[in-house]
């Protein structure tokens, strides 16, 4: 790409340069030749006039005999010729009766000699004599050639210098393209953080900006894909654990009853365990179904009295020692939503809070607040809190802060996923604030 541009530019340059050179040198040599031609012509005319004057004098002297006159003219001519030869001019006179009375100017080239030849008849009454004039031009011609050669040499030198300069100019122009291409290769090889830094304005800068924007998009998408994959992997791992642990117990107990010696009491105890584990799996299956179907569900909304809802929820949970943990403050807010789903959301949040609190000092506050265009319900506790790195993930299905996923302090990790889904269905926002050891506040803004 770069080489091709270089070669094309250089050829164009050479073509223009040598065209100019040819025109200039042709023009120069033509002008010079013209100049010499004019000069020779003037000289020829002078010689011609002198000869005519001299011959007229000879003729007037009365040598009427043509033979004598011819001999006299010959002698006279020879004197002139000898004089002129010193300044590089040859002349020749011969009789030609039918010569046209025109100056015939021509160049005679008889290498290495080079002549300007002019021939014309003398003026009347001696027009039967034709004078031919040769000017030795070789010296001047070689001067012209030398000038041409110097000019050519300068052109070649100039071409060579231009070749180098052009290379650097193009290299400078193409440098940003090199940067862009290197960055593209890096991105293609998976280094998505690669960006181009080009200062200035113009097309290259615009390309660089577009490129960077493209790189941003790619990086974002790749990151999203990565997170999505990780989320899916986590979901699969957790689902596997959540299924396998009870299954191991169920299979194990069943096998034991089948193969080992069991008395009645033991059999009843073990079958009870099997039933309990099977019910747990059933609960998970139901929650998963709920999550799956809620995604497509349009809730039927009605006016819900939050005060009643709070009482209902605390009543449901109050069969145990947790009863006096709850403090409710509904501000008589009324909410428009699906009563069953909102109750399920609150129940899940409350159960999470109960698990987070120790039974002696635990306090769980349910509160509701309404302003001009939104209603916020929040559940806050003074329990163990959620570590900051887990905050983003707690609404993922099967995510549990406890990596060991032990059964004693929690369910399968589906509660908050369900809450998030219910909030989404109501176009509500679920926010979790938490500090380790101080407690957690979950608020849902409708």
């Amino acid at each position, binding site marked *: 790409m770069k080489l091709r541009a270089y070669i094309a530019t250089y050829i164009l340059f050479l073509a223009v340069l040598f065209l100019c050179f040819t025109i200039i040198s042709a023009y120069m040599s033509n002008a010079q030749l013209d100049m010499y031609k004019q000069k020779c012509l003037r000289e020829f005319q002078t010689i011609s006039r002198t000869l005519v004057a001299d011959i007229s004098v000879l003729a007037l002297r009365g040598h009427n005999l043509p033979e004598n006159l011819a001999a006299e003219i010959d002698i006279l001519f020879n004197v002139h010729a000898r004089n002129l030869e010193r300044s590089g001019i040859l002349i020749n006179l011969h009789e030609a009766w039918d010569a046209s009375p025109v100056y015939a100017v021509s160049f005679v080239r008889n290498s290495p000699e080079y002549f300007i030849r002019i021939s014309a008849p003398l003026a009347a009454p001696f027009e039967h004599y034709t004078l031919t004039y040769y000017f030795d031009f070789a010296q001047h011609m070689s001067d012209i050639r030398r000038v041409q050669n110097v000019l050519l040499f300068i052109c070649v030198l100039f071409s060579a210098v231009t070749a180098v300069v052009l290379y650097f100019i193009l290299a400078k122009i193409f440098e940003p393209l090199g940067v862009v291409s290197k960055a593209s290769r890096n991105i293609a090889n998976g280094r998505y953080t690669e960006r181009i830094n080009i200062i200035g304005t113009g097309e290259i800068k615009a390309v660089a900006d577009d490129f960077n924007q493209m790189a941003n998009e790619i990086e974002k998408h790749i990151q999203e894909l990565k997170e999505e994959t990780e989320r899916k992997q986590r979901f699969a*791992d957790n689902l*596997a*654990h959540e299924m*396998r*642990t009870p*299954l*191991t*117990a169920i*299979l*194990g*107990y069943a*096998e*034991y009853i*089948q*193969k*080992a*010696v069991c008395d009645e009491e033991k059999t009843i105890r073990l079958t009870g*365990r099997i039933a309990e*584990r099977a019910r747990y799996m059933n609960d998970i299956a139901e929650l998963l179904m709920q999550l799956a179907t809620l995604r497509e569900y349009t809730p039927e909304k009605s006016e819900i009295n939050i005060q009643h809802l709070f009482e209902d929820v605390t009543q449901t949970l109050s069969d145990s020692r947790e009863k006096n943990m709850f403090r409710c403050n509904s501000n008589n807010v009324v909410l428009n939503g699906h009563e069953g789903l909102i109750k399920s959301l609150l129940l899940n949040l409350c159960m999470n809070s109960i698990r987070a609190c120790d039974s002696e000092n635990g306090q769980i506050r349910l509160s509701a607040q309404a302003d001009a265009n939104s209603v916020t319900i929040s559940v806050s506790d003074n329990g163990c809190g959620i570590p900051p790195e887990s905050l983003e993930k707690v609404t993922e299905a099967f995510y549990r802060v*406890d*990596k*060991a*996923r*032990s*059964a*004693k302090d929690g369910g399968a990790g589906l509660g908050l996923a369900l809450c998030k889904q219910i909030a989404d269905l109501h176009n509500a926002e679920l926010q979790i604030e938490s500090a380790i050891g101080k407690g957690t506040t979950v608020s849902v803004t409708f």
Partner: protein
Amino acid sequence: MPSKILIVEDDADINELIAMNLQLMGHVCTRVYDGNDALKAIEESAPDLVLLDIMLPGLDGFEIMERISGVPVIFITAKDGLQNKIAGLSAGADDYIVKPFEMLEMIARVDAVLRRTQKSGDVFILDGVTVNLTERSVKKDGGDPCLTPKEFELLEVLIAHKNIAMSREKLLSMAWGYDFEGETRTVDYHISKLKSKLGWENRIKTVYKFGYRLEVTA
């Protein structure tokens, strides 16, 4: 020969299940539910074998592995996949069991690790019958009951799975080999021979519609 086995598993049901099965084999089990207790128990009781769950509250299985040495360990985990197995085995575990596992599989793996790591003379004594599993010899009240090689192999399988009912198919595949194309009646025939030769009519019990069980009171 009873061995001391420590079970580290946070799921109470699975923990109990493993213990119940190993007790059938005559092993003595200690049960703990989290990583810190596991370390304490390993130091205090020096078990012959540790069954270790990887995902545990407190220290996890790998962290525990780093802090103990000289104790045979079998990892138990719900995480399947080659990568996890390699991680487990390269951490120094002797074997690896994936949940959900079968009782027989777990017993076989525990037996294999114990046989490898213990130099116990494999002698089994019941009702005047002495079975030397290393020498492959049987004595009944000082005399030789003259067992055929097949009968001895069957006896070996029953002893290895004492107190556990073995289906006829399982017995056939374990004593005769997986590619043996015999009928399950072959098993019935050899079992009745074994019963009468050893006088174990009350020891080898027929489990209705299933198979046989060698019953040994623990």
